[in-house]
């Protein structure tokens, strides 16, 4: 393919809650195939609301959602199709895991699609293997840790073989190891060609994985671009109740307070910072 395709596209999406409050205001959001895109925003900015549009749970008051270039059809058949293409992993795994055992829960989606038992079994195995939860099949969800529940929730979506995976705050509430396990899984899925959309307010992690960042504040997209480009605009970031990654903040302080020559753009990850510092020492010698 010569041109990159927008697999998910929101065009001028506005959404009002049933009580009339505006949740989204003319949101434009595009995701290229095979990318990892982060939706960054403070609590209550409308991240989850926007995500629920991507598989047709919510219908925009005005505007349009396109999946793989086609407008979402809100018929029963159309919704089945969209939900097989776009899988959403919700923030709280307890909201998602309802079945008495892990295997039943992971099998829920594929069974709903109407696949044969053999195919369901194969998919359940594959998905559990991908998230490293083989051997937990017969366990009930309340005997799992937070990180394990999250991985099972991801497996439940993987088993439906979506092209696009949407994750609402996938690392919130997890310990560092649990969080990095989740990110590793997402990397691997992305390598295999899955498009991934993540909502988060963890600004330190975002530059590590995201190809593209959108910043949402009070229901509107206020900034978009590569991590470098987005974090250059420090005022906008801080105005949206977010902050720079710690490492970039350190560089900013070193430049402004200690007059060290670490100019913008500030490095966003430890790797970038290391290079910059090494280069500085080389220049000194």
């Amino acid at each position, binding site marked *: 393919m010569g041109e990159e395709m927008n697999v998910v596209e929101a065009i001028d999406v506005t959404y009002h809650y049933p009580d009339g409050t505006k949740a989204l205001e003319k949101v434009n959001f595009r995701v290229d195939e095979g990318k990892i895109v982060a939706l960054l925003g403070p609590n209550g900015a409308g991240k989850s609301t926007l995500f629920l549009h991507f598989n047709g749970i919510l219908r925009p008051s005005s505007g349009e959602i396109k999946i793989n270039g086609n407008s979402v059809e809100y018929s029963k058949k159309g919704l089945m199709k969209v939900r097989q293409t776009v899988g959403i992993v919700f923030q709280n795994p307890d909201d998602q895991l309802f079945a008495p055992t892990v295997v039943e829960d992971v099998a829920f989606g594929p069974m709903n699609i109407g696949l044969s038992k053999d195919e369901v*079994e194969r998919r359940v195995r594959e998905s559990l293997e991908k998230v490293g939860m083989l051997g937990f099949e017969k366990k009930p969800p309340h005997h799992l840790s937070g990180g394990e529940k999250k991985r099972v929730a991801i497996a439940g979506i993987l088993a439906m073989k979506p092209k696009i995976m949407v994750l609402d705050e996938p690392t919130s509430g997890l310990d560092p190891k649990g969080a990095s396990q989740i990110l590793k899984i997402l990397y691997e899925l992305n390598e295999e060609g899955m498009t991934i959309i993540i909502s988060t307010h963890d600004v330190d992690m975002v530059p590590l994985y995201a190809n593209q960042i959108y910043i949402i504040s009070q229901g509107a997209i206020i900034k978009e671009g590569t991590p470098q480009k987005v974090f250059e605009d420090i005022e906008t970031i801080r105005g949206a109740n977010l902050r720079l990654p710690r490492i970039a903040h350190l560089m900013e302080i070193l430049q402004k307070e200690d007059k060290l020559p670490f100019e913008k753009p500030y490095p966003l990850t430890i790797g970038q910072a290391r290079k910059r510092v090494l280069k500085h020492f080389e220049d000194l010698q």
Partner: protein
Amino acid sequence: MIENTLDNYAYTNSIKDANVSFKVLFAILTVIVCLVSTSPVIPLTITFLMLFLIIFLAKIPFKFYLKFLSIPFIFGFMTFIFMTVFFGISEPWFNIGIFNLAVYKDGLNLGFLVLARIMGCFSCLGFLVLTTPINEIFFLLERFRIPKIIIEIAMMMYRYIFVFLDESGKMYNSQQTRLGYSSLKNTYRSVALLASNLFIKTWSKGEQLYITMESRCYNGSIKTFEVQKSIDIENLFLLLSFEFLLLLGVYLTRGFKVI
């Protein structure tokens, strides 16, 4: 918490993978034998047999099982006392000396039989509860053609009992942190708040759950995935001959009285 440990044992005991139909049939048939018996001998035999199975075969800790059994025993023992004192129709055996109460022979016999039956039946149910994960029982119910909607509701109730247990535990702690249970009046108020808050949480969790299920193409019925194995002939034969032996015991001891 006892519910929690019960559930834990059901998933971790060493015969959790044994055939479910076999375990259920075994428990139910043995309960029936217990109820049929007119002497306390067989129910007591069953109680000890189950004790043996639960502790040595399923490897449930002895202490836990005793605690588990103490609950029916307390109720059974109270029944026994009342029956001994109030249910006799024949001549009193001896007078206790207070309130003109007397112990009756037939009352004592009947009371002891009831106690034995309670212990026997409860041991059978204990065996089932402690060795069989509940989801397997759901599948069995499905095979018995129990309406699907009932099983689905039961499945979700089972799952969410633990979510709400957790939730109410957290709320309780947070109330206690702010001295919510420092006096009787505060306790009443806090319990009421906890209950109403839990109700609202249930509501919103339900809505959230529906959204997550819809996202996975839910269309009104949960299709179960696992298949159940039936009991093979050999085991069925063993089971039936065991129950027959018990019944034979019931017949042979039919006239047995404690006194």
